[in-house]
């Protein structure tokens, strides 16, 4: 599974992307988030306040209950801030 991080999520975890084997017992985004917190350091910090973290699976916005499979592309990022004034 490819995991991508953007904006301050990238800065907090310290990497832009990584390959992760879907951890045993993890079936959805919420489960992956809980597993991320157990990695400690920047990961624990990045995934603590999930109200300001958004998720995409295979480049589509999803919520925490979205199911995951090995081979998915998962991205974590802050709420988006593009566009004009």
């Amino acid at each position, binding site marked *: 599974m490819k995991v991508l991080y953007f904006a301050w999520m990238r800065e907090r975890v310290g990497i832009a992307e990584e390959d992760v084997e879907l951890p045993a017992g993890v079936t959805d985004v919420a489960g992956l988030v809980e597993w991320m917190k157990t990695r400690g350091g920047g990961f624990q910090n990045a995934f603590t306040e999930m109200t300001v973290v958004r998720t*995409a699976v295979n*480049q589509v916005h999803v919520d925490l209950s979205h199911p995951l499979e090995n081979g998915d592309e998962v991205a974590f990022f802050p709420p988006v801030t*593009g*566009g004009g004034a």
Partner: protein
Amino acid sequence: MIRVQTEDFDAGAEIDAMRERCADADAGGLCSFIGVVRAGEGADQITSMTLEHYPGMTEKEMARIEAEARQRWPLADVLILHRTGRLVPGDQIVLVLTASRHRKASLAAAEFLIDWLKTKAPFWKSEETAGEARWVAARASDEEAAAKWD
């Protein structure tokens, strides 16, 4: 049509090109929105900003937003152009163009497109002030503007 680029754009040339593409569509209304980088005021004043995005998803999400607008209004043509990289106050950042037979569809669709673009397309602004860089936080008012189209 969607485009993501670091280079600046020529809004006049883009409008002319759209008018030509619409030559046989009987489009009587062409609406444009240009977003410009603001300097801000006082302690919030910025010297520059850098736009990061999610290559791949950005294009998919912009195409989905265009498709949604085309489903809601009878549009002859759509252009959503968003810049990335480093920009300074006064720079153009985004261009939305819509064309339709009558004005109402093009005006409403342009507002819809920019509202949805701001809350759904994966772009993130980092603002640089005199001494530091900070990530721009999403605004509740932008969410409210997008939600009115739900």
